[in-house]
């Protein structure tokens, strides 16, 4: 079976995922809504996952895909914990804007 990368080129995958990764970063910086920020972080992780799979094909090696499983587990765990924190903030503060989290400074 032909390597699909012969038609697309690993570079393009790299660029795609770099762009996606940067969009994630951009989202984190751009939005003040904590939920959207979480989503942006998910975009970042997904960009990496995509690259993992691409590299996995590149090397014809399954380990990259296995790693994606772990990465998904991590993402899930992070989201769970993050949302739990967010909920308790929402309860105390009534808002989920990260701009309101400026009590600790100096």
């Amino acid at each position, binding site marked *: 079976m032909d390597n699909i990368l012969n038609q697309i080129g690993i570079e393009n995958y790299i660029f795609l995922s770099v762009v996606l990764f940067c969009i994630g*970063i951009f989202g*984190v*910086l751009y939005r*003040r809504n904590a939920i959207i920020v979480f989503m942006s972080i998910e975009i970042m992780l997904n960009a990496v996952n995509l690259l993992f799979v691409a590299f996995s094909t590149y090397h014809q090696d399954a380990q990259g895909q296995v790693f994606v499983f772990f990465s998904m587990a991590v993402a899930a765990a992070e989201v769970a914990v993050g949302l739990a924190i967010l909920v308790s903030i929402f309860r105390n503060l009534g808002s989920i804007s*990260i*701009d309101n*989290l*400026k*009590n*600790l*400074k*100096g």
Partner: protein
Amino acid sequence: MEMDTNLALLLVLTPFLGFLINVFFGKSLGKTVSGTIGTLAVAISFIVTLLLFNQITTTGKAIEVTLFDWIQISNLKINLGFLLDQLSVLWLLFVTGIGSLIHLYSISYMHDDENLHKFFSYLNLFVFFMITLVIGSNLLVLFIGWEGVGLCSYLLIGFWHKNQDYNDAAKKAFIMNRIGDLGLLIGMFIIGSMFSTLDYATLKTAIAGASNLNLPLLSLAALCLFIGACGKSAQIPLYTWLPDAMAGPTPVSALIHAATMVTAGIFMVTRLNFVFDLAPDVQTVIAVIGAITSLVAATIGLVQNDIKKVLAYSTVSQLGLMFLALGFGAYEVAVFHVITHAFFKACLFLGSGSVIHGLHGEQDMRKMGGLRKAMPITFWTMLISSLAISGVPFFSGFFSKDEILLTAFHHSIPLYVVGSVASIMTAFYMFRLMFLTFFKEFRGTEEQKHHLHESGALITFPLMILAILATFGGLISLPGNSWLNEYLAPLFTKVAGEEQHLGTTEYTLMGVAVLGGLLGILIAYIKYFKQNNVPESDENITGLTKVLYNKYYVDEIYDAIFVRSVNGLSVFFRDYIETGLSTLVFGLGKITDELAFQGKKIQTGSIGLYLFVFVLGLCAIVSYIFLAQ
């Protein structure tokens, strides 16, 4: 040898023992016992000195005693040792002799003072240090005594310590002496580094045997030593402490500030004659300074009204004459004058002390007068001494002063003239003192007049002894037949001067001097006896007199130039430099503190900012590593 050591130690330590006893037990012993112990201690030293003198005159050999190593410096080793030769024993004779008399005198004079035991302990200590100074076998032992007598002088000038003016005077004396001491130290350093010894005997042989001497350096050393002498012997420019030192009790003035301590400079120069002989330039300086000092002090003395101040300036003036002689290399002449001066000046001081004692502390001559009848012994002894100091023939001062002037004449006419003028002035102000004090009517209060009386035997006895000495002291060195010159001859490398033949010139000069002296007396007589002048009260003094009365404003000038500038500098340093340096150090802290303060503002608490910096940092690092090339 053992015997000599013991004798020397006895000589030195008896006054020290007296000092210790008086310090620790003086108060409980009572005044009379305390005074007696003090006097005895010095008297024992005097007796020992006589023994030593006897030994020296018979054997003609110096006695050397070495006790132990004192200070070790790489190339010179300094012993604590004594050298008892002709010069030191001679000096000891009048130090301990006059010392004993003055101690005796003090028993009565200080009897009313509650701290009498302290007074005697200080006096004993002084004698101890003076003896150390004189008999030390090297310059450093001399320096112990040198500083020690300075200390005692400090203690005794400030004896009445409740009066801060007296304390100021004491302090001034000590500090001016210290200026000289620095010179002495520097001189020692130079000599030490040149010859690797400070020991007189070794030094003398070293200099004699040295080839290729670094004469300029040696001259510098001599000059430094002379600065030391200036300080101790109150020469220009370091003389101003001596008149102020009259704040001390009168016996102190007599002992320390007339007879003994102030002659230490002359002693030192004489001791190191072999050094000074090699530095003719310095000798000239010495002569000039001596002459100027003698003239300046004499002029100031003309108008002083404080009886002790007159005597003090007279002392400075006489010391100047001695240095004049030293400057011409006529050491034995200077020594001769030291001895006669010790006699008559001690007598004069003690006499003035007797007067002050009689007047309960009054020192202003304008408030004296007519004391001749009330205090005959004092009057006569003082008169004899005045005649001696004025150079009236056949009193001791005549011989010694005449020799100085003769020497000066042979070397330098201008200096001779200066010296002569100073002598004439001396005669004048001494008799001004005599007339104002003892003649005419008493000008003090009624109460003082009521209590006028001759002082007790303990006071008059020393006066009489000293008066006798002042009269006949000149006999030790008669012109042309000088016992003293022969006695001192082993000390000097050169043949003592050009053996003075008494010729016409000499007789003429003698006559001139005598006439001058008489002239001075005459003027005083006319002014203060015939015309019955009494010096003006302070505020009415004007013109030249005012300048003289205020001592040429030298104190004020010194104060302005040195004291004030140092104090001003001190305040400046304290208030500005210290604060500035401190601010500088604190400033470093302040800067970091300010940075911290500003830095706190960056930490805004905003996650966006934090991540922004994060990303920037990431970009910077990545691009630096991978894109920089």
